[in-house]
């Protein structure tokens, strides 16, 4: 029998983005995360002051925050952009240089996993043809800097959307790489719209929980997407307990990171009333989600 997995619970700093730099400093966010009992976090490259060239003083400060608040780096979100200029796309070599820059930063800041956004051409996240060329050329550098590029499986994409198996999984099998995989966003299991977010998807085609099993060997970090957690610490639109049980029973010991997308996140800047609501709801919702994960995991 497979040994039970012991996933860590963590938080995406993205969850606080409406407040960051407005009513919340980076240290405030670390304190907030510490309060929840989370042990790891996702950063975005954009949250590195001076990106792509943070000062040594900031890097020291960053590690000081990790130590002070007992939080481990989990995943660095970045973008494999190949259209940074007008007109034709960049060459593979230009894209690889951008990727190397982020790999180095991830290594410097202690991230072993990356959420690598490959250029998509529609809402189903079908990748722009040719992505294999620059990603394959980047693999030796991912190995050098000890990072795994993870493509996010994000609603409305499902685990059975053709490009997931036909392109991404095929790429992993063909190259044999351990430096490319999946960040499976729990939103892909969402069964119904959240109140106030009815426009997001029709939820006619969603991932079934059991589909995750095949992908666990290729996943180190997953986004714990949520659109609202009630006061009983339940996410009513996503079968969290069922999915996490499958992960644990199949020996998965990666990171599940709270990624908040409650309705106010989209409208926080529209009025003073909305922003005041966001200031209260956002941290509270992340706290609720962490309690929910703790209740399911048992720690």
């Amino acid at each position: 029998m497979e040994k039970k997995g012991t996933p860590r619970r963590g938080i995406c700093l993205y969850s606080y983005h409406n407040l960051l730099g407005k009513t919340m400093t980076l240290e405030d966010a670390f304190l907030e995360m510490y309060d929840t009992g989370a042990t790891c976090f996702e950063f975005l490259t954009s949250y590195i002051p001076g990106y792509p060239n943070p000062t040594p003083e900031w890097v020291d400060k960053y590690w000081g925050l990790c130590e002070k608040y007992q939080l481990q780096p989990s995943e660095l979100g970045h973008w494999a952009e190949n259209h940074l200029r007008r007109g034709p796309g960049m060459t593979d070599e230009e894209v690889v240089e951008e990727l190397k820059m982020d790999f180095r930063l991830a290594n410097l800041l202690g991230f072993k996993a990356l959420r690598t956004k490959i250029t998509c051409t529609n809402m189903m996240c079908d990748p722009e043809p040719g992505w294999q060329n620059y990603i394959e050329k980047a693999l030796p550098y991912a190995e050098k800097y000890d990072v795994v590029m993870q493509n996010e499986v994000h609603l409305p994409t499902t685990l059975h959307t053709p490009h997931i198996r036909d392109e991404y999984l095929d790429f992993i099998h063909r190259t044999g790489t351990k430096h490319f995989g999946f960040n499976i966003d729990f939103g892909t299991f969402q069964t119904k719209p959240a109140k106030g977010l009815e426009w997001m998807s029709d939820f006619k085609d969603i991932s079934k929980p059991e589909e995750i099993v095949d992908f666990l060997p290729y996943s180190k970090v997953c986004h714990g997407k949520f659109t609202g957690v009630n006061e009983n610490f339940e996410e009513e639109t996503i079968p969290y307990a069922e999915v996490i049980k499958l992960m644990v029973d199949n020996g998965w010991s990666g990171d599940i990171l709270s990624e908040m997308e409650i309705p106010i996140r989209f409208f926080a800047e529209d009025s003073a009333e909305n922003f005041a609501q966001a200031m209260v709801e956002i941290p509270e919702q992340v706290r609720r989600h962490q309690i929910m994960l703790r209740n399911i995991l048992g720690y």
Partner: protein
Amino acid sequence: MVEFQTIQQRGFHNTYDENGKINGFEFRFVPKYYKGYWFSQCRFGNITVDGEVFDRDEVIYVYDGMEYSREELFSLRKYWQFREPLTFRVRKEGGLSIGYHNVGLQFGWVLNYNGALEAEADGSGLGNMAHMFGTDHERRMLLCR
């Protein structure tokens, strides 16, 4: 720290030439998006103040103490840091009157995220993310000097 609105009132004032004569106005803008951008990904539209239109190619974009034209931003290898304001400097003889003004602008960007690639090869549009995040911003602001 910046204000929660995208168009910032802090920094909204008339500008003066070396002789102390008002020659225009300026204000600051901070996108509400969750990440920063390379400036070459940014697409700017015109500015309006109380209905008066100021052409995007007449605007001076000021970042990190440096002035740029819209055209220069297309090839600028510089990252617009998250939550860092960009100043829009507009030439207008006599500037704006003391009091309230409705300030508007259009801003879009190009990103590799869940949409068609940019339709305009010359960057003349507002990028490829308008379908998800819109482009229009407006705020009523009080000018004091």
